[in-house]
């Protein structure tokens, strides 16, 4: 029996690369790993999980909709049957909720925001991100089963020709765990967030070059699920509405991530955003003052860097994009 289960989430007819990467990583640190695919066409999806010896495929009708409760119950049942010590999930909105239900079902220990997973003797060791403290914390689990939620994009799938053995499993799902009905589904319309709500802000300064540069800011903000800010200089030049002004005479914002594009970092602007937790700055001028306090300073032209960045972020979401419409600009 495998000692480690990895949940593989389905995305657009295939398996999400984050889950596959985690699966391959778990194999590489020496665990006896089985993948778990839950949902419609689980068995046929499972075939793309190369590089592992076993994949459990559960396709009960209760698992058809992408909802957490039936998945948590099915996974809990599988942990009971296999006696697995570790359950690894690549974070997504769905997976995080599955982890919560699973932890309550099995009284297990959940550790989230994991950026590294290693094996030290018999012990699973995680390095997790404590964003509030700005620390990396190395932890082991106090309870079993150990439930691990890893951060997005941390583990890359590795090529392998090894084909898994696919084992179908059926498990009865209690009615309460399948009581939520999906009445309607439609692709999400991506919208820019307002500065008050945004946990990610993309700011444009004089260095973006004109109103067209702000289209680029908006496009990146949509991709990151955030909002757009502008510096006093850019607003003064009427490149972007005054409502987006961040700085001494505008709004103050303290998002988790602030991406400053073509922003010099003048004190006037800095006063409005200095409490941002993480700052990425892209600027052509290597002497821009913003580089003095940016967490990641990128010397470069935003017209080169940002389109490529958007492309990479889109590729990460892969299949999702195909079924998605882009919302109207919220200016």
């Amino acid at each position, binding site marked *: 029996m495998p000692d480690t289960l990895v949940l593989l989430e389905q995305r657009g007819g295939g398996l999400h690369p984050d889950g596959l990467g985690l699966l391959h990583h778990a194999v590489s640190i020496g665990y006896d790993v089985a993948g778990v695919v839950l949902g419609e066409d689980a068995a046929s999806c499972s075939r793309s999980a190369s590089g592992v010896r076993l994949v459990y495929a559960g396709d009960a009708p209760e698992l058809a909709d992408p909802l957490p409760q039936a998945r948590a119950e099915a996974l809990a049942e599988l942990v009971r049957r296999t006696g697995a010590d570790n359950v690894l999930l690549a974070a997504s909105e769905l997976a995080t909720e599955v982890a919560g239900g699973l932890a309550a079902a099995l009284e297990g220990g959940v550790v989230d925001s994991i950026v590294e997973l290693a094996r030290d003797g018999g012990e699973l060791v995680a390095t997790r991100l404590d*964003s509030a403290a700005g620390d990396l914390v190395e932890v082991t689990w106090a309870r079993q089963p150990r439930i691990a939620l890893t951060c997005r994009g941390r583990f890359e799938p590795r090529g392998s020709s090894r084909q898994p053995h696919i084992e179908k499993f059926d498990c009865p799902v209690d009615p309460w765990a399948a009581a939520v009905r999906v009445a309607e589904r439609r692709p999400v319309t991506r919208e820019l967030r307002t500065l008050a709500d945004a946990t990610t802000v993309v700011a444009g300064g004089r260095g973006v070059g004109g109103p067209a540069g702000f289209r680029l800011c908006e496009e990146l903000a949509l991709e990151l699920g955030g909002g757009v800010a502008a510096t006093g200089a850019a607003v003064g030049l009427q490149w972007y509405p005054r409502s987006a002004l961040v700085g001494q005479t505008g709004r103050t914002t303290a998002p988790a991530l602030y991406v400053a594009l073509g922003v010099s970092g003048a004190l006037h602007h800095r006063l409005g955003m200095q409490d941002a937790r993480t700052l990425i700055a892209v600027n052509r001028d290597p002497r821009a003052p913003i580089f003095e306090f940016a967490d990641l*300073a990128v010397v470069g032209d935003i017209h080169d860097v940002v389109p*490529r960045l958007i492309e990479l972020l889109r590729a990460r979401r892969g299949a999702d994009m195909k079924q998605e419409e882009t919302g109207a600009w919220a200016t």
Partner: protein
Amino acid sequence: VRIAIALTQVPAAGERAFPRAALIAIEAALEVREQIGCEVVALAAGTRGAAVLRRAETMGADRTLLVSDGDMGDDRVGTSRVLAAALLRESAELIVFGQMPSDASDAIVPAAVARRLGLPLVSRAVALEVDPEAARVRAVRRTEVEDATLEAPLPAVVAITAPAHRPRYPSLYRLRDTASTRPTETSIAELDVAPGEPAAIVRQRRPLDTRQRLDTDAEPARRIVEFLAARGLL
């Protein structure tokens, strides 16, 4: 119909602002009350929970309940145990959590509570409608992939990410009228639940990598993606 607001988010030590997720939960519950007319009970754990309960009361909650020694720290499973026990006593038809999209705890705890109570979970909800006659709740679940309209029978657990309106300000009348009221207090002993235990054992702690600068990188965009992944920001 009774609505219980489960306030798991409390202000950090030395912080005066209330966590947005808590305000969202309170606002959403009060909006449902305005829709259908019902009682709203706010519930929190730990001594710092008292401040959030006070806020709920001044915004309009009818009653507040504090599990005074129920702060389980990072033990989300323990937190869900305390909340489930307290919620079971309130026998609410609708249990409302606030949820910030990027916070793992905000997703884990409601799911764990729903599991313990054996209730349907409607999470990442942006538009909430309660039909007391049909005993149903309807909400849009907004995820990175889709908007799904969900329907669940009551009683149910709802985790809301955006109420219809911005969280309201405390009313002066409520501030005056509730100046001397205190939350009803209970304890984990009274609820008969085990105390929390840490989920993880810390081996060592080190600060995140110091600042990085890329002057001439062939693929700066890729470095940015790696940087975002390493900081859990993707």
